[in-house]
């Protein structure tokens, strides 16, 4: 059930009505309604993997309690590592086994040894990378005595399976979400309208911008040998817009939906393409994942506190692991490695915390220096996205070498130039709105709040009509693949 589907448009109001009317003023009933809705939502993808989700939930729930009851550190460690290994084991089997098997076989073939590994024909359970990380963060926080284990199974299950974040995040923390789950929610008009506004904006990003850009990105990447460098450069640009609008659009819908139920989720995107350096980009892109890796991998490895060498090592580790988290392909590892290279100067010169403020805060136009920084950062991230999108390293290298050939100076070719121009125009308008709204949680968070009601509603209708008219060819959310 996609967020932008008709079925979700029916599902959400039904859950809303049950939640606020049938479960009114009763915390337990509220949580049960959300949990049942979440399991139903997940089973619409593939009911078989519901068992995996429930098993993972049970495992972490049980090991969390066992850790807190452990009389010795040894027993505590046992339960901790059991949970970690089983969770990572699921990821290893479902997501990475075939990659390792075929990579191993290829390595052996380079040595002249022919080996046909046994591969698994299994589907990747949707959302596994996300709910596994929910469970891992919970278990790690208990182990470190940051939180107490949750003894209410329904509450804990809801923390893992809450449907807005179940299939593509944001990756929540027990310290942030569990307290909200354990407290009765009262309806807030402001929160609900804000949630609807964020859902509307998320739908616009996904349906209009992302899906239109996807049409051209897919066409160009899938047929890259047929196009000149200028078209390939545009293809990379289209993908850069696609992945941002697709993923941040999904996150907006997730956050907005949660707010309808009185729950605040962690912000996942903070206008990353307006970043002035790569370090700032990674503070603004997929925030829940990068902060997860920072808290649970980078800092435990020593962070930047044990000398420059260790800091550089840890930087490369988290970016490569982050790349690998996205998928079982060398291209994702290359993407992660490239980002580590890009961020290296700021680590070396300790400038990675230079831009903690919002660019050109309080004014409409950035400075010339900011414009240059933004453009450079944008160019570097677009370059790295080529690896992310390409099917293989060879394709990525071919793609890049064609961009940096003489054919970059030719006129770009498109089978449907008018739609391509329209897409670029819509994207330009979109980023203008994003720029104007960059100091808020999402671009239209306070749009029209001071206008007369009729004008504000007219603006919402215009966005809705825009979604209706300019709907792109439907694409699955990119991050569902992870």
């Amino acid at each position, binding site marked *: 059930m996609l967020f932008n*589907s*008709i*079925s979700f448009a029916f599902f959400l109001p039904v859950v809303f009505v049950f939640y606020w009317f049938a479960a009114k003023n009763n915390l337990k009933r509220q949580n049960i309604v959300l949990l049942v809705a979440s399991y139903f939502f997940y089973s619409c993808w593939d009911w078989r993997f519901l068992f995996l989700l429930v098993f993972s939930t049970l495992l972490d729930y049980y090991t969390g309690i066992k850790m807190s009851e452990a009389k010795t550190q040894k027993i505590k460690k046992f339960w901790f590592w059991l949970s970690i290994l089983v969770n990572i084991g699921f990821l290893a089997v479902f997501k990475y086994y075939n990659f390792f098997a075929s990579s191993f076989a290829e390595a052996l073939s380079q040595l002249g040894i022919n080996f046909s590994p046994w591969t698994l024909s299994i589907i990747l359970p949707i959302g596994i990378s996300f709910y596994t990380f929910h469970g891992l963060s919970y278990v790690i926080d208990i182990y470190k005595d940051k939180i107490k284990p949750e003894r209410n199974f329904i509450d804990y299950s809801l923390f893992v399976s809450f449907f807005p974040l179940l299939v593509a995040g944001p990756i929540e923390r027990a310290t942030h979400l569990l307290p909200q789950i354990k407290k009765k929610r009262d309806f807030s008009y402001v929160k609900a309208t804000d949630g609807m506004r964020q859902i509307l904006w998320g739908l616009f990003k996904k349906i209009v911008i992302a899906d239109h850009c996807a049409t051209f990105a897919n066409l160009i990447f899938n047929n890259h040998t047929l196009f000149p460098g200028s078209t390939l450069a545009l293809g990379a640009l289209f993908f850069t817009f696609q992945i941002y609008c697709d993923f941040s659009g999904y996150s907006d819908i997730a956050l907005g939906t949660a707010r309808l139920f009185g729950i605040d989720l962690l912000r996942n995107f903070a206008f990353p393409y307006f970043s002035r350096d790569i370090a700032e980009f990674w503070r603004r892109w997929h925030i829940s994942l990068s902060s997860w890796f920072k808290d649970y991998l980078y800092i435990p490895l020593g962070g930047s506190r044990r000398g420059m060498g260790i800091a550089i090592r840890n930087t490369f580790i988290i970016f490569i692991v982050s790349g690998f988290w996205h998928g079982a392909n060398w291209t994702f590892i290359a993407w992660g490695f490239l980002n580590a290279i890009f961020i290296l100067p700021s680590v070396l010169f300790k400038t990675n915390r230079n831009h903690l403020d919002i660019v050109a805060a309080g004014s409409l136009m950035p400075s010339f220096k900011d414009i240059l920084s933004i453009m450079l950062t944008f160019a570097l991230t677009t370059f790295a996205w080529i690896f992310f999108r390409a099917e293989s390293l060879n394709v990525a290298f071919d793609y890049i070498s064609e961009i940096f050939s003489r054919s970059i100076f030719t006129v770009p070719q498109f089978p449907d130039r008018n739609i391509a121009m329209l897409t670029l125009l819509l994207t330009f308008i979109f980023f203008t709105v994003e720029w104007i709204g960059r100091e808020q949680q999402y671009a239209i968070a306070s749009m029209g709040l001071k206008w007369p009601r009729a004008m504000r509603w007219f603006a919402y*209708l215009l966005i809705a*009509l825009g979604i*209706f008219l300019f709907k792109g060819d439907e694409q699955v959310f990119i991050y569902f693949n992870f």
Partner: protein
Amino acid sequence: MKRFLYRLTFIAGMALVLMASSFLFTNQFIGKHAKIELDKSKSMLVIGHSHSECAFNDSLIVNSSNISSSAESYFYNYYKILAILKQNKQLKTVFIGFSNNQVDEVMDDWTWDDRHLQNKYKTYAPFIDLEGTKLLYTKNPNGLIGNFGASVFHNLYVIASGSNLTKKIGGYLSLVMTRPDTIPVKEQKGKEQYSFKKTSAVNLHYLKAIINKCKAENINVYLVRSPLHKEWKYLRNEQVFQRVLRKEFSATEFLDFKDFPLADSDFADSEHLNFRGARKFSLFFNRLLDEKMLLRADKEEFIKAEILKVSERIANGADFLPPR
């Protein structure tokens, strides 16, 4: 809560009314005012999917217009021809591409799966009647509703460009690819994957509807199978294809050019002719029309004999067509 629900319902209601009225209005407008004006001097029409689209070069076939379109099932062909026949009374003959995959259930996907709806619905929405809309809604409600907006946008685009649909509904497609070395490899994979399961009743229903409509307008109608490579996977259902032809379309003449002799290099892939193959076939077809093929009672034997002559000429190193 009440305030939220009232306001949300009001805005959602307004949005739905705006969307529905834009959909209905633009469809009505296009349905009434769209121009599909073919060359008035041409009285023959070719319609079908990509096989006929790539095989019939209408610049080489005198007196003909090709309005075939890729990935188009008879459902869309039907509504297209309804619109065309209204505005093109000069048409006297219609050739309907009829190939092995068109009896297969895969045509159901071509009619109502998401990908084909995205491609086709926006063009034909103004012409699809209630029965057709009901069919699409029954089979893929999400897909249909999801394409209403795209059809409005397309309608507005068409209106803005003068409501002329003539060039948007199909035409001869010249393919430059040649993949002779991939045909056996591709179809080896195809052979492992394809096996006939059932026919597409819907597709055949709409083929009958096209034929009946043409006959009602006193238009001569023929089913035509353009040349196919022997490795094409759907040829495996030849028995079923012939059975459907005999049982369902015995009253309609079938012109079979499946075995027209072409080299691998005349094919873009196992089912589509490239520009070279299309040239050869179209000149051949034109020659047969010149020789009054359509007036003969023994069309099937005539075509077979002419194809045999071509094969012999090629085997003897001569040009595939004798000079006039």
